[in-house]
């Protein structure tokens, strides 16, 4: 089972990202589970969402405490020193940031990649919503779930121009990272 934890701020689409990731995994033939850390938070507040991907039915219902992967949609969240608590030692973290990877790498023993998803999103869809770009990058890095599954998941959620722009965005984003770089981190 692979466990993911997505951090973001209300309005950035963290829950949507979790659902998309789960849906992509489902498209790729996995079982999946995605849910938010349910809160009463409003737009702008820190939020979390969780994803589990496995080949057999997922029984566990707790929050993801020891993720294999973390996605941080907003680098300002890293002001919280405990944000990455529980990330497996062999785990990896994808951070949405214009800063270079090096800027974060020294703070964590796990692997970290900084990725300017917001810029890509603004360029592609005209809105600063980084979630699909981050997912594409994550999938490219892990290669557990193919990009086509994410595209299918997107097709289940969006249509028209929004879909087209997002499809273009994930293609760009996937190419912007090193494919299979985190392949060995975890297996479903």
């Amino acid at each position, binding site marked *: 089972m692979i466990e993911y934890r997505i951090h973001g701020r209300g309005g950035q689409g963290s829950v949507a990202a979790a659902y998309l990731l789960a849906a992509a995994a*489902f498209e790729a033939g996995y079982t*999946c*589970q995605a*849910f938010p850390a*349910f809160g009463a938070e409003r737009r702008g507040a820190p939020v979390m969402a969780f994803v589990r991907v496995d080949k057999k039915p997922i*029984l*566990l*219902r*707790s929050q993801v*405490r020891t993720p294999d992967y973390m996605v941080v949609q907003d680098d300002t969240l890293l002001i919280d020193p405990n944000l990455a608590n529980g990330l497996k030692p062999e785990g990896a973290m994808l951070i949405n940031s214009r800063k270079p990877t090096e800027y974060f790498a020294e703070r964590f023993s796990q692997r970290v990649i900084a990725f300017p998803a917001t810029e890509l999103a603004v360029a592609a869809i005209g809105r600063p919503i980084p979630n699909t770009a981050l997912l594409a990058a994550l999938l490219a890095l892990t290669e557990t779930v193919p990009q086509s599954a994410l595209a299918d998941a997107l097709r289940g959620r969006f249509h028209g121009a929004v879909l087209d722009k997002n499809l273009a965005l994930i293609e760009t984003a996937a190419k912007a990272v090193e494919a299979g770089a985190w392949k060995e981190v975890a297996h479903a």
Partner: protein
Amino acid sequence: MREALEGSQAIARAVALTKPEVIAAYPITPQTHIVENLSKLVADGKLKAEYVSVESEFSAASVVLGAAAAGARAYTASASQGILLMSEVMYNISGLRVPLVMTIANRAVGGPINIWNDQSDTMAVRDAGWIQLHCISNQEAVDTTIQAFRLAQETGLPVAVNMDGFVLTHTMEVIDMPSQEEVDAFLPPFEFADALDPERPRSMGTLVDPNFFPEVRHSHHAAMGKALARIEEIDKAYKKVVGRASGGLLTVEGDKKAKVGILAMGSVVGTMMAGLEDFKDEVGAARIIKLRSFRPFPAKALRAAVKGLDKLVVIDRAISPGLGGVLGTEVSAVLSTLKNAPKVYNYALGLGGRDIPETMYRDLLTTIEDKKAPRFAVFDADLDKLAPEDR
């Protein structure tokens, strides 16, 4: 067809498959996604039903009461405070023997206000005379919802389908949605023999005096007793058509020969089963009793299920302050007639949405190894957070 769906969305689609004629609901977290999805289905013309946007849960329950009494298949959903606001009507619905279905997206009851999952709401209406079924997954919730409609009309009793708020309602997972053809084959059109009808103008909800009230209550109780068999039969019938059952009254999972058992309702059962997988080597495998039917309470089946157990942990997601866990107390009462009844440890977990990690399996089993283990505790409460005089 297998799909990755959010629980609420799946429930809305399952409800739509039953072709309800009247839906009435008042929004409350975490039930909202269900009714939003249903509203959308109606708005999109995918569901031909009267969707009544009421001004309170009280009216939601009243509307579905009226609708079912008038002969329509009716559905509502609520949670928490909404259930308590409905409670007066809930007693009425069952007392009038009006068949309808409600989803309870289980949530704690304030105050203090808390929007997260536990089962205090459904426990607060345990005596309301409804059939109350619990689901451990969204798949079970979908299947149980569809079964509930048939159960309601065959027993003449209202059915509440419980699913943990957020933990199930807001969770996307893979669900095998039955097809319309399957549901049509399983579920006959709604029929309520006692419905209001100008052709045969009966009066429902008459004043019953002490001369008859005990008989009325007895008959209600007896109907609940008879419903036990119906719950199992309908689960089997569903399996026959759809190929999947939801666990009848209760099912026994894990190590069926184990001397230690864990009994629970709802999604926590899944976590316990995951814990079993992960920690069986460490603390041993337990027998896990997944209780699906809380009302009617399957006493006989439960006595059979605990046979051979020395110890039984009953996980409660609600407490009755001043007594202990609700489910635990009931289980103890039911097992008290057994000669070699297991020792019951009743632990409340995850009140107000506190996350229940899979390590809890280990912690529970470890705790009861101690002879001095408490028979009841709010297990995951950190008493250090309390002032000494409040511990």
